[in-house]
């Protein structure tokens, strides 16, 4: 009887561990087709230029039960910038801005994670842009982890994150203050479990 109870408990525990809502730290890979890194920057005071990066790759280690154990690393190809206007894209890829020939990638590597609410938290990490590394904090909303019916029911984590950086902190000083110094960044990411 005792053995039977133990077997049932073991089975339950195993089911929990293997379930989409598993409490252990799992590894997830950012889905490039469902990951959007969108930015906007003030343009001469009229409005904002909005753009995104289309080549984003990254991995996430995430434990919903202990967010502090989470780790995130992201690499963005700077030449994948797109602002819906090719001449402006070329300008942004030039040495005046992203200098893609010299710095083909920008990276983010987390150093600390903290839970701030039921579904919110912060992820602090090192952003390396134009060869300069500065600490940046992302305000993150954890949307859900659930089986993805379009991906063989693979457990998929979904997040939305937001931060504001100053491009001059990274040596990108062209056309200040006409083109704003603050760059507002929003990230929406889906990451299937690996």
């Amino acid at each position: 009887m005792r053995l039977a109870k133990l077997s049932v408990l073991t089975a339950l525990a195993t089911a929990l561990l293997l379930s989409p809502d598993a409490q252990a730290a799992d590894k997830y890979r950012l889905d490039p087709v469902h990951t959007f890194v969108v930015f906007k920057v003030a343009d001469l005071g009229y409005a904002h230029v909005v753009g995104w990066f289309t080549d984003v790759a990254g991995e996430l280690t995430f434990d919903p039960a202990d967010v502090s154990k989470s780790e995130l690393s992201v690499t963005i190809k700077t030449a994948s910038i797109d602002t819906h206007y090719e001449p402006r894209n070329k300008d942004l890829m030039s040495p005046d801005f992203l200098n893609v020939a010299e710095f083909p990638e920008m990276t983010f590597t987390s150093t600390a994670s903290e839970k701030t609410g039921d579904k919110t938290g912060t992820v602090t990490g090192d952003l390396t842009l134009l060869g300069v590394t500065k600490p940046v904090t992302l305000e993150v909303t954890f949307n859900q982890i659930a089986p993805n019916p379009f991906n063989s029911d693979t457990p998929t984590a979904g997040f939305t994150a937001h931060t504001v950086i100053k491009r001059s902190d990274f040596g990108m000083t062209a056309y200040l203050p006409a083109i704003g110094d603050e760059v507002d960044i929003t990230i929406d990411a889906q990451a299937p479990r690996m």
Partner: protein
Amino acid sequence: MDTSNPIFQAIIAPFAVAFVVVGASRLIGGRSGSALLAGLGVAGALLLALALLRGVPPFPPNSSPEKLFYLIVLAGALGLALDLAGRPQALERLAILAFPAIGLVWLDLRQLLAGPERALLIELVLLWLGGAVVLWRLRDAAARNGLTAAILVIATAIGVAAVAALAPFMGLALASAAVGAAMGALAIWAYGTLILGGTPMTIGATALFAAAGGLVVMVQLLVLFTPAASKPAAAFLVIVPFSGLVAERLPLDSGVIGRILGPILQGAIAAVPVLATIGLAYLLPDD
């Protein structure tokens, strides 16, 4: 005056500073003026423009555009050392050969340390050759007539600015415009000196290295780090200083009319390869 306006930063400010300092240099050193002080005016005007446009970069600089500022400081310092030493020919020629190489190695240090491909090495050699040829030609022109050299530098600066603007690399276009503005101020004084005094004004190594050396580094930046810049156009820029050889053979007398018309015709002749460069940049972008 809006000091954050790029036109002010790239053209008005460097022109004004160079004009005042070069003008002051005419009061020093008697009839010939002080080529050294005039050179410091040109170099200072150029560095002021870069500081206004992008700020003074950190040292050591991190990226290639930030290195431009310090390479112009180096160029000006090389020129200053040559002027103070009395411009010994052998040393000046060595500096002409060395400076483009220094610029290339420092600008492309990351790729060189990572193990460059053969294509890059060939490109670096060609850029070095082109830079050395341009500096050599301008030095020869300056030795004969400072105004001619100034006109050739201005024409080359316009060509570099146009190729950069079409790339686009607008920051470099503005930096090149600053070279044109600073040398333009010097050219105005040289023109006035020629017309009124009948003797050409001397351009020292400080002005030559700061301005022309600066342009050489700018072309290096353009070719190495601006994927969409037209390499055929950048290569054709080497021809611009040689237009002076045509201008020098113009059948003009040494009287007032000749002194007034000569530089104007030189400018017109120099405009031909500049226009060709712009045409190449427009028709043959490196997409």
